[in-house]
């Protein structure tokens, strides 16, 4: 299975098979022929909810920490990746667009993962902007016609889990960086990046233990680019945090040989977004857990002095490992310290 996974990984990043992958998931390779994000281009909706085939990589990324009627904490992830081998779309099998999706359901003691792959061009997977609909196989994220992405129906299922959720946005879309132009390194690598961080989620989750009604908060990230990472960047630690105060924060650190590159967006309870530059956010691993033979930081100290934030973020289930074609850690977290609340943490590039 391992050789196959490796092969898929290589295939997905469009590299010659057997060549050394650049950065995590080949995201650090150059983007010859592909479109490059430009500062100042205004995002337009609903068009930008749809795919951008001229860009090499794109994702629809939804995470939601949930609580069940049974009183237990849960978390779900639903991600659709688009990876282009060439900056174009074609009909049929010869389409150079490849789709990959990950779904996860995290329980305090278990973590369920499923993955889907599809060729573009034949209808097995794809996204339409209006009415909004994203799908791969039977997994879907479908918007109510006329409501953009404000009302979503989200489903996915794997061998041992399934979920069926309704999402209702309560605030506006948040543009990260410079009006959606999000810089990823001092060398200028960037992506288009916007979020809808304020969904109220209700629905059911199902495991072999049975079906449970759940509710919670959802966060959608939309990002596309052709070269989101610099060559020397090996991975990232990404946080989406919703505080009980109603404020929210998105923050990440891109790791390189040195101090790394950090970026954050503070989202007020009114939905107003304040981008913060490199260095404003400090992230400090407090504790690591051995997951799949690697040391993964599962307790963090997160400090953002500009907003009086000094918190400890801990994994709800430290074994929230995504054993997919590109393996990474992703799971719900609990916040204590100057602020309290819940959120999601993603860590990539830990070898």
């Amino acid at each position, binding site marked *: 299975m391992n*050789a*196959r996974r*490796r*092969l*898929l990984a*290589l*295939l997905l990043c*469009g*590299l*010659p*098979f*057997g*060549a050394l992958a650049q950065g995590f998931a080949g995201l650090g390779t150059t983007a010859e022929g592909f479109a490059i994000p430009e500062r100042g281009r205004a995002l337009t909706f609903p068009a930008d909810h749809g795919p951008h085939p001229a860009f090499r990589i794109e994702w629809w990324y939804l995470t939601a920490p949930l609580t069940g009627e049974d009183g237990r904490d849960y978390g779900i992830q639903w991600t659709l990746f688009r990876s282009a*081998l*060439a900056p174009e779309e*074609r009909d*049929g*099998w*010869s389409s*150079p667009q*490849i789709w990959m999706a990950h779904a996860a359901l995290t329980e305090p003691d278990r973590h369920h993962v*499923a993955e889907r*792959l*599809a*060729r573009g061009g*034949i*209808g*097995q997977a794809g996204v339409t902007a209006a009415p909004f609909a994203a*799908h791969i*196989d*039977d997994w879907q994220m479908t918007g109510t016609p006329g409501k953009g992405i404000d009302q979503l129906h989200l489903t996915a*299922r*794997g*061998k*041992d*889990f*399934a979920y069926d959720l309704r999402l209702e946005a309560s605030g506006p879309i948040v543009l990260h960086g410079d009006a959606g132009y999000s810089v990823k390194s001092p060398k200028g690598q960037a992506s288009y990046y916007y979020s809808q961080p304020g969904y109220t989620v209700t629905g059911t989750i*199902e495991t072999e233990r049975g079906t449970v009604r759940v509710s919670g908060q959802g966060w959608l990230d939309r990002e596309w680019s052709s070269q989101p990472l610099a060559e020397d960047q090996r991975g990232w630690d990404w946080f989406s945090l919703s505080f009980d105060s109603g404020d929210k924060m998105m923050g990440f650190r891109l790791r390189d040989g040195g101090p790394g590159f950090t970026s954050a967006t503070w989202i007020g309870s009114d939905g107003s977004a304040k981008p913060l530059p490199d260095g404003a956010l400090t992230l400090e691993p407090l504790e690591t857990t051995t997951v799949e033979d690697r040391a993964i930081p599962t307790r963090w100290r997160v400090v953002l002095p500009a907003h009086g934030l000094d918190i400890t973020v801990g994994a709800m289930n430290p074994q929230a490992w995504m054993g997919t074609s590109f393996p990474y850690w992703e799971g719900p977290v609990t916040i204590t310290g100057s602020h309290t609340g819940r959120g999601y943490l993603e860590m990539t590039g830990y070898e």
Partner: protein
Amino acid sequence: MTRWAFLALLSHWRRQPLQLVAMILGLALATGLWSAVQAINAEARASYAAAASRLGLSQGPTLTSPDGTIPSDTYVALRRAGWQLSPVLEGPIRLGGRTLRLVGVDVLSYPALPDSSALSGIAPLDVLTPPGRLFASRVTAEGFDGDPRLVLSQDVPAGVVLTDIGTAEALLDRPGALSRILVLPDQPMGLAPLADLAPQLSLSSPSATSDAAHLTDSFHLNLTAFGLLSFAVGLFIVHGTAGLVMEQRRPLFRTLRALGLPARHLTLLVLAELLTLALIAGLLGLVLGYLVAAALLPDVAATLRGLYGAPVEGGLTLRPLWVLSGLAMAVVGAGLAGARGIWALVRLPILASSGMALRSVASGLGARHLALAGLALILAGYLALRLMPGLTGGFVMLAGLLLGAALLLPLLVDACLQLCQRRAKGPVAQWVWADMRVQLPGLSLALMALLLALAANIGVGTMVSSFRLTFTGWLDQRLASELYVRAASDEQGAAIERWLASRADAVLPLRSAEITLAGQPGELYGVADHATYRQNWPLIASEPGVWDRVAAGEAALINEQLARRENLWPGDTVTIAPDWTLTVAGVYSDYGNPKGQVMVSIPALVAHHPEVPNRRFGIRVDPAKSEALARDLRQSFDLPEESIVDQAALKASSLAIFDKTFVVTGALNVLTLGVAGFAILTALLTLWTMRLPQVAPAWALGLTRAQLGRLELCRSLALAAITALLALPLGLALAWVLLNVINVAAFGWRLPMYLFPADWLRLFLLALIAGGLAAALPARRLHRLPPAHLLRIFANER
């Protein structure tokens, strides 16, 4: 003590190096032929298994459609219902002048991709988008190794070109079509049943063995039978030599026993010696077997590919199991051969009882008992065929017939000799016949070997030659059109058809679809309503008005294979698809194809399979004009050389494939005969020491040594001749069983039997040569024997 005794035992070989050679060579030959066949079988089987697993043929349940094509929309619909599936589109493709199997898979979902090392340096984009990449092994790629799309990969089985499904779609010109859909092992929870989602598709779980293995079983059974025959024949040699060696060392054994070596100890020593020899010979045999297998494998591979489409590489790998089984055969063989000698050794009295009872076996109870056992075996074989019809019964019957006949041989030969002796006039002649009867028990094993080898030669030769004659006649009927053309696309096909309409006497479209017939892969052909078929088609059974009924779409023709397998004959009905059943109006012979086949009228074919390509045509034209027409056609449509084949070329290549198929059989035949000749030689050498007391008195009474030598040669020739004469009816019986039982069960066709007396004469001469060569050495020895040596017989107490 042990050491000295062992050295004393071994000293024999220094004095009799020829016996050592005979013993080791005999055992090595037996092991060699056996392991050659085993190696070929194992290699072929391993190839099927590898091919099956590499191609995902055994990757789990598979969805297929009764008409052979699944729209890719169905695939997407099932995917969107949550099912984890992998689509496959495959079909024949002409590459480098050969027809190969193009397997198109979705590289994202296919569970059995080549190892990634084969892919290093290749951009995924190139694989997924036009013109695509073609993955093939070196053997497969021979004809098109200049193709820029080619990627060599040893993981892809022979005869298969693996590619992305998008590329396959374009190359096969079947957009939006799939051949089958694999159901992947891991499925999400709570899926709707496939039967509800796609009732038109059928889900089949792959059988434990792949198609190829199933189809080729009979071929391998054939080979194994030949291997066992070779082994048996080889054992005769060893048996003879082992007997001789034990006999000659009798005085030594006696002396050792008299000197105080316990019988058990001595037996163990002899066993150890035998084991050592067996291992040495076994190793030698393995080397021999490897060489023979390596020499024959390419032909076997070609046969399996040509006849069954079974993928077999031409290379041979050394398998530990093969080595072990070869050595085991050598040891078991040596044990069998030496058993009698060792048994005699265990019971050896210390005090000699001189005078060997030479006569009793041949004329007495021995031969009669053997003959009775032989008759019983033949009867048992016959009963076996009655009780279990089919291949197994056929082979049991063959085994019974051959072994039984071999056991009957001593009595029959003795009877012949007795007859000759009675009719002999002169004293020398009388003596010679009488003397041969004395010799017979010692020679009968070797003669049995010769009988088996000759019978196998006659039987298999008759089968192959009959088959070839029938096949040639059948080719004439089947290939009635003067030219055969293959277009690149349906459009070009239509254009060619129009173009030819005014230039040729007739254009006969050749259209076919792959279908499932009675649960096995089969073919559906469309036949044009034309005199060419009405006059030539090789029908072996038919109803009146067969062609009119087929043309009207009321009836179908089926091939002999299907007819015999499913017992369908004119008047019965054949189910072509769940909703399509036709009356069988005729059965035609169809050699060189193990699959079942149904022929219907072209309109009927197109009605049920609108997608069948229309690219191949037979062209009827005045033979004198065919060459010019082919040239014009090629020019007008810019067709590649191999797209137009004339009848003669097609026949020639068909016959070439046919001949290749039986190269192995021929080679094994010759080897077996050689081994049998060698068996006679060792038997004669074995008898040598016992010969002197027989011939010395005759010499003393006035025969010259030269005369004695000549007589020795004549004796051997006469025995070979008698055996060859007796082998003829046995061989013909064998041929009859092969043609009427084995072939029907293995291939599904019955062949008429033809007789080839010229071949028998050739074989008779070969038998004489074998007998003559075998006796040449003893005869020469006798001729050169110093008189003093002969005199000692009279002077010395033995």
